[in-house]
Structures are given as C-alpha cells and as structure tokens.
C-alpha cells in the first residue's frame, strides 16, 4: 500500500525536477544573451566583467541596425501574412475535399522545409532574376513564406480538425455566403490557431538568415543577416542587444495584442 504511495511521490518529484531542469537549460542561452547585452567590454565575454547601457545607446543610434530591425519586422509581417493567408485558405480547402489536388498539395507544401536554405536561396535567386522580380522585400518575403506556409498549413490542419463544421453549415443555412461565413463564423472560432500560426510564421522569418543572405540587397537586410555578417569580424555585444531588444519588443507586442484581444472580448460583452 504505502509502497505504491511512496513510489508515486518519487515519480512526482522526479517529474517535476525533470521539467524544471529542462526549463533552466532552455533559459541559459537567453540569460547569456541578456547579460552580455549589458556588458562593458566591446567583445562578447561571459560572465562579463562590468555592466553598461552604452551598447543600447549605440544600437539606438545605429542606422544600420535600426533599419535592419525595420526590415526584419517588415519582412516578418509580410511573410507571416502571406503564409497565413495561403496556409489558412489552403488548409481550409483541403479539409473537406478529397480531390486529387488536395491530396497532392500537402507533400508539395512540405517539400521546401526539406531543402537546405542555401540551395533554396540560390535557386530562388536565379529564378527571381530570370523572371525579373528583383525587389528584395518581395523576394525574401516569398522565400520565407515558402518555409512558413507548411508550418501554418499543418498547424491549421490540426486546428480545423477540431473545428465544429456544423457551425459553418449553420451559418450558410442562415443565409450567409461563404465569404461571410468565414468572416462571421469560422474565423472567430479558429482565431487562436490563426494567431499561433501567424506568430510561428513570423518567428520563422525572423530567424532565417541564409536565404535572406542571398536575396538581400543594398536597401534590404534583416537582423539575423546583419548579426551573421558582423560575426565574421568580431562579435560585439551589439548582437546581444538586438536580440534582447527583439525579445523585449515581442513580449511587449504579445502583451499588447493580448490586451487588445481582451478589449475586443470586452467590447463583445457590452
């Protein structure tokens, strides 16, 4: 009797210890990034010897880094929107159809994820040049969307699998055309899934630097590209500063959008 009970206790303790340990390890590099963003010396050391806000000041005064942040955000927003629209509509279409197109499409959508970004980047570079599409924003947005779309697509597949399709039927039955049904009925119900997949898409774009390296131009370069190229010479705390800045900005963004959504929810209640 008490044997089983005490075994459960031990299991409990091990289980808890396990996930807190993983959590701690997960946070280690983040701690390094944050701490080094305040360090005094001009090359990255950990643990650092002194602290300063100087690098934040440098960052905020650096046109190059600021415009990289702007480009990253623009491209992230562009590609996550594109991927979300394509992934959501595509996944919606595939859901309830058994045409050949809807069977062929999912593996094709998955394929770009399996191709090394060097290859995908170079191939796209050649292709974009051939068709004369040389706007770097568009190029990088498309390239990132190729990676983000499968993620959105598969996340939405699982979301739609849990969606109650009767609601859509009910909407149509009550006289709403497909577009309005989507807007008034489907979307509000899968909103959290859409938000999650958009965020994931944005993150993929925010992280990707190899395709972006190929497709960048004079005007356009993203943060990870700049971070990667500046790694080539010497790693200043600037890279940490930008990361810390992006993390903080995202957290603020998440909190803000949560607040906005709640406001919306509040508005709905009134």
């Amino acid at each position, binding site marked *: 009797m008490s044997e089983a009970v005490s075994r459960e206790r031990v299991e409990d303790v091990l289980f808890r210890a396990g996930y807190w340990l993983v959590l701690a390890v997960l946070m280690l590099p983040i701690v390094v990034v944050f701490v080094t963003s305040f360090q005094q*010396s001009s090359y990255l050391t950990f643990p650092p010897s002194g602290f300063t806000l100087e690098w934040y000041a440098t960052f905020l005064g650096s046109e190059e880094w600021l415009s990289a942040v702007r480009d990253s955000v623009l491209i992230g927003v562009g590609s996550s929107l594109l991927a979300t629209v394509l992934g959501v509509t595509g996944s919606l279409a595939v859901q309830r159809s058994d045409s050949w197109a809807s069977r062929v499409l999912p593996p094709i959508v998955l394929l770009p994820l399996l191709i090394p970004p060097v290859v995908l980047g170079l191939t796209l570079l*050649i292709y974009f040049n051939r068709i004369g599409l040389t706007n770097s924003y568009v190029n990088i947005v498309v390239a990132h969307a190729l990676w983000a779309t499968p993620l959105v697509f598969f996340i939405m597949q699982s979301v739609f699998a849990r969606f109650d399709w009767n609601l859509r039927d009910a909407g149509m039955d009550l006289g709403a055309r497909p577009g309005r049904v989507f807007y008034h009925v489907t979307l509000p119900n899968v909103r959290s899934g859409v938000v999650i997949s958009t965020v994931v898409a944005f993150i993929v774009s925010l992280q990707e630097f190899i395709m972006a390296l190929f497709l960048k131009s004079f005007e356009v370069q993203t943060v990870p590209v700049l971070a990667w190229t500046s790694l080539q*010479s010497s*790693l200043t705390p600037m890279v940490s500063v930008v990361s810390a800045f992006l993390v903080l900005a995202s957290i603020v963004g998440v909190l803000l959008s949560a607040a906005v959504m709640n406001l919306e929810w509040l508005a709905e209640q009134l």
Partner: protein
Amino acid sequence: TGMLGDSGGPQTLRVTVWSGNYVERFEEAIRPIFESRFDAELELVSGWNSLLAKIKSAPADDPPFDVTVACEPIYYNGRSQDLFEELRYEDHIPNIDNVIQHYKDIRPYSHGAPVDGAPLSILYNTDLEEPVETWSDFTSFVVQQSNGVGVDSGFWIYPLLAAGVGTDAAPGAQELYEEQHHDALMDTIEAWPIEGWASSGTDVWQQFQNGIVDAAQWYFDQVYYDMEDHPNVEFAMPEQNAGWMNNWAVVRGTDKRQLGEEFINMLLDPEVQSKWAEDHPLFFTTSGMSYPDDLAQYLPTTAEEAEQWSIPQWEEVAPYSEQFSNKFKQMKNQ
C-alpha cells in the same frame, strides 16, 4: 535612394565590399571622399561570398551592382566567366601607374585593379613559454604542447600559404604551385596541432578566450584593432609572410562602367589610400601612399618588402585546387 526610374537625379554607384568591419571602415574612409569628388551617390552592400552567384544569376545587362571587390578565387572565376568588364586603364584609370609593379604581376589586372589587401598574422597566448613569431613555429615544441592552433576553416588557401611559407622545400609559398613539393607541404600542415577551425575573427578570439587554442592564424586587418581587448593575446608579423589582396572590378553589363572605372581610379589615388589607411589597417598598392606611423612597421612600403609576401595566384593553383580542397576537408573531418 536608388529607386527604379529616378534616373533624372544623381547617379548611384552600387559597390560590393566585404562584410564586417571592412564595410564599416570603408564607409568611414571612402564615402566622404567619393561624395566630394563625384556628383553621384555611393551605395555599399557588404557581400558575403555570394557575390559571384548574384552576378551570375542576374541578366547579363542588369547586374545587381556596378563595382565589386574581389580576391582569389573570386577574381579568377569572375574573370574567366566573363563576369567583369575589362578595365579601360588608358582612358579612365591613369592612377594604375602609381601601383607597385609587383602587385600588378601577381595576377592579370586586365579586369580588376589591385588596390588593397592584408597580411596574415600570428596570434599567440602570452602565457606560452616562448613567443610564436614565424609560421614554422607552429610545428615547434611549445606550440605542439599547447592547447592547439586555430586556422581559417573557410579558405584553405591561406592556411596552406602560411604552411608553405613555413616549409623550406621551396621559396615563399611556391610549394603550392609545384607539385613535387605538395607532400612536404601537406606534411607540414598536418604537423600543426590544429584544434580550432575558425570561420570568423570572432571565432578566433572566442577560441583563445575559451582555452581551445593558444596560437592562431588570422588576418591582420581584422585583429589589429581588437588586440587591445585581449590582453593575454599577442600578435606577430613574420617577415616571410603571406596575405590576401583585392582586385577591384567593374561588373559586366553595368550601365555605369565609366563611373565604376573612375571610382577604381579614385581608390588608386595615393592620397585616398593614405586617408583610408588611417581607418583600416590594410596594405595598399601604390607607392606614393603613406601609412600612419605605427602601421608602417608592419606593412610593406617598398616593392622589396612586398615581394617577401606570398599572395595567392589562382591561375597557378587552379589545377590542384580540387585536390587541395579535398585534402583540407579531410583534415577537418578526421
């Protein structure tokens, strides 16, 4: 700036340079001069090594940039693939005459003018019992017993040049170009206790800091200014040395060929190079330029000094390049 269709305004010259602190210092030194001398704007992009791919994949009459920096093997490949315009020295680049002949002899300069470059340097931990001052010291007992040696993992030619300089089979790094010495060359480099494969200056400093290496090969221009941050690392410039050199080229199909040539001409102006040297510890190819005083002791100022340095001659090494490349990869992979 530089949007499509605004050809009415001042011209924009799009120039590719190396990334990292090269572009930062280039920007500081050259942009003001360029803007004061030309009625044009300068747009700099720091290319990674994808620049040839970009030219190659672009339409022949619409390259992604107008002027590019190039070293070997990029210069060689660009030239042999017709990706660069031939330079019209007579008409637009009179300053070529300022260039020390030795630099012009290293490679054909028909498609690219030799402008700048940097020597390799040796970095070593000051805690070592003896300083590491020549390339042959990498095989010395002190280095063999240390944590290890760090070398560039991306461009095999530079570690091999250094090894060649440190090998006595042939003068300079001639071992690279003469097949009979290849075995001796490989024996030398295999004797180096390589522990760190660095792909950037950052890597090298990290490897020192993290106790992975106690000596390393890296590029003078990238480490010179960072030395002060690393009190336990010293650097040495052997007299018998190797290095890299840029040939600046005008990209094929550009509609600003002349402006590009004039830009290169500007880079060959000793005055410009002197100014540039204040910002960036590079060596320059004209005889008339002068270095800020502390630099002059490290960099060649005369043709004789320049000839002590082995700079890659791709034409000579091309037949063996695959073989070297594979050997090098095998070394890394073992």
